[in-house]
């Protein structure tokens, strides 16, 4: 909940509601980009961005290297597994398919 997990924005789902699909360690999930879009960085520009996702909201843009290091740390702490599990099990309504 507090550590978040890094992922990459792969597809815009609903530009008006600022919803996108983010891929986290092979799992794709719908995430809100409301906290990272701005006039300088509109939603269309977010594709390919690496972001830190907290409880379904992208909260910060990070660089790719940072994303990979963070994911590795979270795996070591056992937090990434927990997070991925809850992302997947969350009564599958927002789960937009595993790839």
């Amino acid at each position, binding site marked *: 909940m*507090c550590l978040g997990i890094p992922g990459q924005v792969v597809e815009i789902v609903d530009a008006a509601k600022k919803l996108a699909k983010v891929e986290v360690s092979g799992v794709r999930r719908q995430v809100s980009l409301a*906290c990272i879009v701005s006039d300088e960085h509109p939603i269309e520009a977010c594709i390919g961005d690496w972001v830190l996702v907290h409880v*379904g909201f992208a*909260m910060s843009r990070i660089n790719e290297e940072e994303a990979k290091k963070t994911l590795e*740390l979270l795996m070591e702490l056992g937090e990434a597994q927990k997070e991925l599990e809850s992302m997947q099990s969350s009564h599958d309504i927002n789960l937009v398919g595993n790839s």
Partner: protein
Amino acid sequence: MKYVDEFRDPELAKTLLAEIERLLPQIEATKHRPLQLMEFCGGHTHTIFRYGIEQLLPKTIELVHGPGCPVCVLPMGRVDDCVALAERPEVIFTTFGDAMRVPGSKKSLLQAKADGADVRMVYSPLDALDLAKKNPNREVIFFALGFETTMPSTALTVLQAAEDGVQNFSLFCNHITTVPTIKAILDSPSMQLDGFVAPGHVSMVVGEEPFHFVAARYKKPIVITGFEPLDILQSIWLLIKQIAEGRCEVENQYARVVTADGNTPGLKAIAKVFELRDYFEWRGLGSIDHSGVKMKEAYAQFDAEKKFSMPNLTIADPKSCQCGEVLKGAIKPWECKVFASACTPETPMGALMVSSEGACAAYYNFGNLPQIMALKLEQEKLESEKIS
């Protein structure tokens, strides 16, 4: 240096440790007592234990584990309120998984679920909102908890619910605030802290500014810190350097994620939906002024506290449980009478044993348990000798 090799850059870790050792003798206070640095955030506590950072540091530095684990400070009365809400037949009670096992005075949410209440774990408050849309004849309540890190997510979900005109969705708001809590710690006469390792992801939302009073008013150094073991070591070095040079400032070690202004859209959403409570009750710490938020009147229709009646009782923790003293840093987790005996991660008595971010669970999982138990026995022997 048993663990240093596990660091991503062992050479850098060794350099930082050497620098810390070099600076310490320049600090007058260390001649009489260890320096006490508090890591506020449970995420930091977890990293510190996982990588044995305390054992790497010289004895003249003591890390005090702060109350920054939202699940751990949840008072028993609030868990009882959750259970009461969940047991209403019309309600689907949704929560982050972390909160399921926190003991209430009669049961946890997990036990309530086993007894038939409709309790569902969700990953995001948005999932709870979707659930409300799919079940128009049920009342969906989301148990909102966490520090500022998770506040934008629940605030934005409420704004979305309002926009979509969803009638059957509400928040049971138990968000807590970081800054008033740090202030309460600084005001507490029993705490003599020399510096703070400030939470990274709270700062990601609130920015640097809210921490300036720690340096300006209380003259304590504070460093915003990431979650890598190297981040924490580097911040400890930055704190020691400030103390040695007689400075106290807000420094940002986690600039790769935290900007000076924080997250503007997130802060805007928070300001729209939430306002400070006069006070909020914490497990073990009692009531702290302005340490929680509630929903603004404009969003009353999404406020479970207004929509439903709840027992809303203050319930004292069981006598044998010493979570409060551990949270205040007055005793180490293993000094609690029930640590590792009646209280374990499988059968937690206190909330500090429930979450992986709680200090007791961290000691239990990553501490040197045989060594801790030997210390505990020795202390109990000393105590009984004192009595007899």
